[in-house]
Protein backbone atom coordinates (compact mmCIF):
# COMPACT_ATOMS: atom_id res chain seq x y z
CA UNK A 1 0.00 0.00 0.00
CA UNK A 2 1.04 3.60 -0.40
CA UNK A 3 0.06 6.86 1.28
CA UNK A 4 -3.30 8.17 0.10
CA UNK A 5 -3.27 10.66 -2.78
CA UNK A 6 -6.69 12.30 -2.32
CA UNK A 7 -7.01 13.45 -5.94
CA UNK A 8 -6.42 9.98 -7.33
CA UNK A 9 -8.68 8.46 -4.68
CA UNK A 10 -11.46 10.90 -5.62
CA UNK A 11 -11.15 9.90 -9.29
CA UNK A 12 -11.34 6.24 -8.31
CA UNK A 13 -14.36 6.71 -6.04
CA UNK A 14 -16.19 8.65 -8.76
CA UNK A 15 -15.48 5.89 -11.29
CA UNK A 16 -17.06 3.30 -8.95
CA UNK A 17 -20.33 5.15 -8.33
CA UNK A 18 -23.38 3.32 -9.62
CA UNK A 19 -21.55 -0.03 -9.79
CA UNK A 20 -22.55 -3.16 -7.88
CA UNK A 21 -19.76 -3.55 -5.36
CA UNK A 22 -18.77 -5.89 -2.56
CA UNK A 23 -17.55 -4.19 0.60
CA UNK A 24 -15.20 -5.15 3.40
CA UNK A 25 -15.40 -2.64 6.24
CA UNK A 26 -13.60 -3.15 9.52
CA UNK A 27 -12.41 -1.33 12.59
CA UNK A 28 -10.27 -2.95 15.23
CA UNK A 29 -8.25 -2.20 18.38
CA UNK A 30 -6.83 -5.69 18.42
CA UNK A 31 -7.83 -8.59 20.62
CA UNK A 32 -5.23 -7.73 23.27
CA UNK A 33 -6.17 -4.08 23.85
CA UNK A 34 -7.96 -4.69 27.15
CA UNK A 35 -5.41 -7.33 28.21
CA UNK A 36 -2.63 -4.76 27.84
CA UNK A 37 -4.60 -1.90 29.40
CA UNK A 38 -7.49 -2.87 31.66
CA UNK A 39 -9.08 0.58 31.39
CA UNK A 40 -9.26 0.39 27.59
CA UNK A 41 -12.75 -0.24 26.26
CA UNK A 42 -12.32 -2.43 23.22
CA UNK A 43 -14.82 -2.15 20.40
CA UNK A 44 -14.62 -3.15 16.78
CA UNK A 45 -16.62 -4.57 13.93
CA UNK A 46 -16.18 -6.09 10.53
CA UNK A 47 -18.52 -6.91 7.70
CA UNK A 48 -17.29 -8.72 4.63
CA UNK A 49 -18.89 -9.12 1.23
CA UNK A 50 -21.98 -7.05 1.80
CA UNK A 51 -23.26 -5.76 -1.54
CA UNK A 52 -23.44 -2.02 -1.99
CA UNK A 53 -24.08 0.48 -4.75
CA UNK A 54 -23.44 4.13 -3.97
CA UNK A 55 -24.82 7.21 -5.72
CA UNK A 56 -21.81 9.44 -5.08
CA UNK A 57 -18.88 9.51 -2.73
CA UNK A 58 -15.93 11.61 -1.69
CA UNK A 59 -12.73 11.72 0.29
CA UNK A 60 -12.21 14.53 2.81
CA UNK A 61 -9.64 15.69 5.32
CA UNK A 62 -5.94 16.49 5.34
CA UNK A 63 -4.82 13.04 6.38
CA UNK A 64 -5.74 10.78 7.98
CA UNK A 65 -8.68 10.94 5.58
CA UNK A 66 -12.42 10.32 5.72
CA UNK A 67 -14.50 8.66 3.02
CA UNK A 68 -18.29 8.92 2.80
CA UNK A 69 -20.44 7.09 0.27
CA UNK A 70 -24.12 7.99 -0.09
CA UNK A 71 -26.43 5.15 -1.12
CA UNK A 72 -30.09 5.28 -2.04
CA UNK A 73 -31.14 4.36 1.50
CA UNK A 74 -28.19 5.38 3.64
CA UNK A 75 -24.48 5.93 4.05
CA UNK A 76 -21.12 4.29 4.43
CA UNK A 77 -18.57 6.25 6.48
CA UNK A 78 -14.95 5.55 7.34
CA UNK A 79 -12.34 7.70 9.08
CA UNK A 80 -8.67 7.31 9.95
CA UNK A 81 -7.62 6.23 6.45
CA UNK A 82 -3.92 6.65 5.63
CA UNK A 83 -2.95 4.23 2.85
CA UNK A 84 -4.45 2.73 -0.27
CA UNK A 85 -3.87 0.67 -3.37
CA UNK A 86 -5.68 -0.77 -6.37
CA UNK A 87 -4.50 -4.36 -6.33
CA UNK A 88 -3.87 -6.75 -9.21
CA UNK A 89 -7.51 -7.91 -9.05
CA UNK A 90 -8.71 -4.29 -9.46
CA UNK A 91 -9.92 -4.19 -5.87
CA UNK A 92 -9.70 -0.80 -4.17
CA UNK A 93 -8.18 -1.22 -0.71
CA UNK A 94 -8.02 1.55 1.88
CA UNK A 95 -6.51 1.15 5.32
CA UNK A 96 -5.72 3.30 8.33
CA UNK A 97 -2.47 2.45 10.08
CA UNK A 98 -1.58 3.86 13.48
CA UNK A 99 1.82 5.23 14.59
CA UNK A 100 3.09 1.66 15.04
CA UNK A 101 1.95 0.61 11.57
CA UNK A 102 -0.90 -1.45 12.98
CA UNK A 103 -4.15 -1.60 11.07
CA UNK A 104 -6.99 0.28 12.77
CA UNK A 105 -9.51 0.45 9.94
CA UNK A 106 -9.99 -1.13 6.52
CA UNK A 107 -12.41 -0.14 3.77
CA UNK A 108 -12.29 -2.23 0.62
CA UNK A 109 -14.42 -2.11 -2.52
CA UNK A 110 -14.49 -4.73 -5.25
CA UNK A 111 -16.69 -5.70 -8.18
CA UNK A 112 -16.00 -9.37 -7.33
CA UNK A 113 -16.59 -10.90 -3.89
CA UNK A 114 -13.60 -11.09 -1.56
CA UNK A 115 -12.56 -14.60 -0.51
CA UNK A 116 -14.51 -15.71 2.56
Amino acid at each position, binding site marked *: *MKPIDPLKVQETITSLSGKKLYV*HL*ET*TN*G*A*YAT*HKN*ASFFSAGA*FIRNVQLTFLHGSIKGKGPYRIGLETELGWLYAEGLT*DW*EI*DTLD*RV*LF*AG*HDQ*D*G*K*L*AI*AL*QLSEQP*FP*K
Partner: protein
Amino acid sequence: MERHVLVVFPHPDDEAFGVAGTILSHTTNSTPVTYICLTLGEMGRNMGRPLIASRETLPEIRKKELDEACKLLGITDLRHFGMRDKTVEFTDQKVLIDRILQVIKEVNPSLVITFYPGYSVHPDHDATGAAVIQAIQKLPSSERPTVHALAFSKDCEDVIGPPDVINDVANYSSNKLQVMEAHESQTAGMIDALKEAFLKKDEAAVARLTVERFWTYPIHNDRP
Protein backbone atom coordinates in the same frame (compact mmCIF):
# COMPACT_ATOMS: atom_id res chain seq x y z
CA MET B 1 8.90 -39.67 25.83
CA GLU B 2 5.63 -39.02 24.04
CA ARG B 3 4.23 -41.27 21.32
CA HIS B 4 2.82 -38.41 19.23
CA VAL B 5 2.12 -34.78 20.09
CA LEU B 6 -0.88 -32.89 18.68
CA VAL B 7 -0.77 -29.08 18.81
CA VAL B 8 -4.02 -27.16 18.17
CA PHE B 9 -3.99 -23.37 17.89
CA PRO B 10 -6.06 -20.83 15.96
CA HIS B 11 -3.37 -18.48 14.58
CA PRO B 12 -0.03 -18.81 12.84
CA ASP B 13 2.49 -17.61 15.51
CA ASP B 14 0.51 -19.05 18.47
CA GLU B 15 2.96 -21.97 18.25
CA ALA B 16 5.91 -19.58 18.50
CA PHE B 17 5.44 -17.59 21.69
CA GLY B 18 4.47 -20.00 24.44
CA VAL B 19 5.41 -23.43 23.12
CA ALA B 20 8.16 -23.37 20.47
CA GLY B 21 10.80 -24.68 22.88
CA THR B 22 8.54 -27.50 24.03
CA ILE B 23 7.73 -28.47 20.44
CA LEU B 24 11.46 -28.45 19.61
CA SER B 25 12.18 -30.71 22.58
CA HIS B 26 9.74 -33.26 21.11
CA THR B 27 10.86 -33.04 17.47
CA THR B 28 14.52 -33.24 18.55
CA ASN B 29 13.60 -36.52 20.26
CA SER B 30 12.07 -37.70 16.96
CA THR B 31 8.58 -37.59 18.46
CA PRO B 32 6.15 -36.83 15.62
CA VAL B 33 4.25 -33.56 16.03
CA THR B 34 1.00 -32.73 14.20
CA TYR B 35 -0.08 -29.10 14.21
CA ILE B 36 -3.67 -28.06 13.46
CA CYS B 37 -3.80 -24.32 12.73
CA LEU B 38 -7.41 -23.24 12.44
CA THR B 39 -7.00 -19.91 10.62
CA LEU B 40 -4.36 -17.92 8.76
CA GLY B 41 -4.62 -14.96 11.13
CA GLU B 42 -6.40 -13.04 8.38
CA MET B 43 -7.58 -10.31 10.75
CA GLY B 44 -4.26 -9.49 12.39
CA ARG B 45 -3.40 -5.84 12.99
CA ASN B 46 0.31 -6.17 12.39
CA MET B 47 1.12 -5.60 8.75
CA GLY B 48 4.91 -5.68 9.01
CA ARG B 49 7.47 -2.93 9.50
CA PRO B 50 7.71 -1.35 7.01
CA LEU B 51 4.22 -2.32 5.78
CA ILE B 52 4.48 -5.52 3.76
CA ALA B 53 0.86 -6.69 3.89
CA SER B 54 -2.68 -5.53 3.25
CA ARG B 55 -5.82 -7.09 4.69
CA GLU B 56 -6.08 -9.16 1.47
CA THR B 57 -2.43 -10.26 1.14
CA LEU B 58 -1.95 -11.00 4.85
CA PRO B 59 -3.27 -14.62 4.74
CA GLU B 60 -0.83 -15.74 2.02
CA ILE B 61 2.08 -13.99 3.74
CA ARG B 62 1.23 -15.61 7.09
CA LYS B 63 0.81 -19.00 5.44
CA LYS B 64 4.38 -18.79 4.11
CA GLU B 65 5.63 -17.60 7.49
CA LEU B 66 3.92 -20.56 9.15
CA ASP B 67 5.54 -22.97 6.67
CA GLU B 68 8.94 -21.53 7.55
CA ALA B 69 8.19 -21.70 11.30
CA CYS B 70 7.13 -25.36 10.97
CA LYS B 71 10.34 -26.14 9.08
CA LEU B 72 12.36 -24.59 11.92
CA LEU B 73 10.28 -26.51 14.49
CA GLY B 74 10.68 -29.85 12.71
CA ILE B 75 6.90 -30.12 12.20
CA THR B 76 6.15 -32.05 9.01
CA ASP B 77 2.41 -32.59 9.55
CA LEU B 78 0.70 -29.20 9.40
CA ARG B 79 -3.08 -29.18 8.95
CA HIS B 80 -4.92 -26.02 7.89
CA PHE B 81 -8.57 -25.94 8.93
CA GLY B 82 -9.37 -22.99 6.64
CA MET B 83 -11.38 -20.99 9.14
CA ARG B 84 -11.37 -17.21 9.43
CA ASP B 85 -9.56 -15.38 12.19
CA LYS B 86 -11.97 -14.01 14.88
CA THR B 87 -14.78 -16.41 13.92
CA VAL B 88 -13.79 -19.61 15.77
CA GLU B 89 -16.31 -19.05 18.59
CA PHE B 90 -19.11 -18.41 16.07
CA THR B 91 -18.55 -21.32 13.71
CA ASP B 92 -20.64 -24.51 13.97
CA GLN B 93 -19.05 -25.94 17.14
CA LYS B 94 -20.28 -29.48 16.49
CA VAL B 95 -18.53 -29.53 13.13
CA LEU B 96 -15.31 -28.09 14.58
CA ILE B 97 -15.28 -30.56 17.50
CA ASP B 98 -15.83 -33.44 15.11
CA ARG B 99 -13.03 -32.34 12.75
CA ILE B 100 -10.61 -32.14 15.69
CA LEU B 101 -11.81 -35.53 16.95
CA GLN B 102 -11.13 -37.11 13.55
CA VAL B 103 -7.51 -35.92 13.66
CA ILE B 104 -7.12 -37.16 17.25
CA LYS B 105 -8.40 -40.59 16.22
CA GLU B 106 -6.09 -40.59 13.20
CA VAL B 107 -2.79 -39.60 14.85
CA ASN B 108 -3.56 -41.05 18.31
CA PRO B 109 -1.55 -38.52 20.33
CA SER B 110 -0.32 -39.22 23.84
CA LEU B 111 -0.14 -35.45 24.46
CA VAL B 112 -2.27 -32.56 23.18
CA ILE B 113 -1.15 -28.94 23.54
CA THR B 114 -3.74 -26.17 23.19
CA PHE B 115 -5.07 -23.08 24.97
CA TYR B 116 -6.74 -23.29 28.38
CA PRO B 117 -10.41 -22.44 27.70
CA GLY B 118 -11.53 -19.33 29.56
CA TYR B 119 -8.05 -18.10 30.50
CA SER B 120 -6.38 -17.40 27.17
CA VAL B 121 -7.43 -13.77 26.45
CA HIS B 122 -8.28 -13.99 22.73
CA PRO B 123 -11.79 -15.37 22.03
CA ASP B 124 -10.31 -17.60 19.29
CA HIS B 125 -7.87 -19.06 21.85
CA ASP B 126 -10.62 -19.86 24.36
CA ALA B 127 -12.89 -21.33 21.67
CA THR B 128 -10.08 -23.50 20.30
CA GLY B 129 -9.25 -24.89 23.73
CA ALA B 130 -12.93 -25.55 24.46
CA ALA B 131 -13.41 -27.42 21.17
CA VAL B 132 -10.31 -29.55 21.78
CA ILE B 133 -11.47 -30.49 25.30
CA GLN B 134 -14.94 -31.39 24.03
CA ALA B 135 -13.44 -33.53 21.26
CA ILE B 136 -11.35 -35.43 23.82
CA GLN B 137 -14.40 -35.86 26.09
CA LYS B 138 -15.97 -37.93 23.32
CA LEU B 139 -13.25 -40.57 23.76
CA PRO B 140 -13.53 -43.27 26.43
CA SER B 141 -11.56 -42.21 29.56
CA SER B 142 -8.89 -44.85 28.98
CA GLU B 143 -8.10 -43.51 25.49
CA ARG B 144 -7.85 -39.83 26.36
CA PRO B 145 -4.51 -38.11 25.74
CA THR B 146 -3.00 -35.82 28.36
CA VAL B 147 -3.71 -32.14 27.69
CA HIS B 148 -1.14 -29.47 28.47
CA ALA B 149 -3.01 -26.17 28.27
CA LEU B 150 -1.56 -22.70 27.93
CA ALA B 151 -3.14 -19.86 29.94
CA PHE B 152 -2.10 -16.23 30.22
CA SER B 153 -5.06 -14.10 31.29
CA LYS B 154 -4.23 -11.74 34.16
CA ASP B 155 -6.38 -13.58 36.69
CA CYS B 156 -5.66 -17.13 35.59
CA GLU B 157 -3.47 -18.23 38.50
CA ASP B 158 -6.01 -16.92 41.04
CA VAL B 159 -8.56 -19.35 39.65
CA ILE B 160 -6.73 -22.34 38.17
CA GLY B 161 -3.67 -22.14 40.39
CA PRO B 162 -0.04 -22.17 39.30
CA PRO B 163 1.04 -24.18 36.24
CA ASP B 164 2.05 -27.76 37.09
CA VAL B 165 4.23 -28.33 34.02
CA ILE B 166 7.34 -26.15 33.84
CA ASN B 167 9.50 -26.93 30.82
CA ASP B 168 13.09 -25.70 30.82
CA VAL B 169 13.69 -24.85 27.16
CA ALA B 170 16.90 -22.83 27.60
CA ASN B 171 18.67 -25.14 25.12
CA TYR B 172 16.25 -24.00 22.43
CA SER B 173 16.12 -20.27 23.15
CA SER B 174 17.93 -19.22 19.97
CA ASN B 175 15.81 -21.60 17.87
CA LYS B 176 12.70 -20.23 19.54
CA LEU B 177 13.76 -16.70 18.60
CA GLN B 178 14.16 -17.87 14.99
CA VAL B 179 10.65 -19.32 15.02
CA MET B 180 9.30 -16.02 16.32
CA GLU B 181 11.31 -14.18 13.67
CA ALA B 182 9.84 -16.40 10.95
CA HIS B 183 6.50 -14.71 11.64
CA GLU B 184 8.03 -11.51 10.35
CA SER B 185 4.80 -9.65 9.55
CA GLN B 186 3.71 -10.13 13.17
CA THR B 187 6.94 -9.85 15.14
CA ALA B 188 9.04 -7.25 13.26
CA GLY B 189 7.92 -4.58 15.74
CA MET B 190 9.19 -6.43 18.82
CA ILE B 191 11.85 -8.97 17.91
CA ASP B 192 14.87 -6.63 18.07
CA ALA B 193 13.85 -5.32 21.48
CA LEU B 194 13.36 -8.89 22.74
CA LYS B 195 16.79 -9.99 21.45
CA GLU B 196 18.46 -7.00 23.08
CA ALA B 197 16.65 -7.58 26.38
CA PHE B 198 17.64 -11.27 26.27
CA LEU B 199 21.31 -10.43 25.70
CA LYS B 200 21.17 -7.99 28.62
CA LYS B 201 19.71 -10.83 30.72
CA ASP B 202 16.50 -8.93 31.36
CA GLU B 203 14.45 -11.17 33.65
CA ALA B 204 11.20 -11.13 31.66
CA ALA B 205 12.94 -11.72 28.32
CA VAL B 206 15.03 -14.59 29.71
CA ALA B 207 11.90 -16.18 31.22
CA ARG B 208 10.07 -15.79 27.94
CA LEU B 209 12.73 -17.63 25.95
CA THR B 210 13.84 -20.27 28.45
CA VAL B 211 10.75 -21.39 30.37
CA GLU B 212 7.38 -22.62 29.07
CA ARG B 213 4.52 -23.19 31.49
CA PHE B 214 1.45 -25.38 31.11
CA TRP B 215 -1.49 -26.57 33.12
CA THR B 216 -2.52 -30.21 32.86
CA TYR B 217 -6.18 -29.84 31.97
CA PRO B 218 -8.49 -31.79 34.27
CA ILE B 219 -10.61 -33.66 31.75
CA HIS B 220 -13.82 -34.94 33.22
CA ASN B 221 -17.15 -34.71 31.49
CA ASP B 222 -18.18 -31.14 32.30
CA ARG B 223 -18.38 -28.72 29.47
CA PRO B 224 -15.41 -26.32 29.53
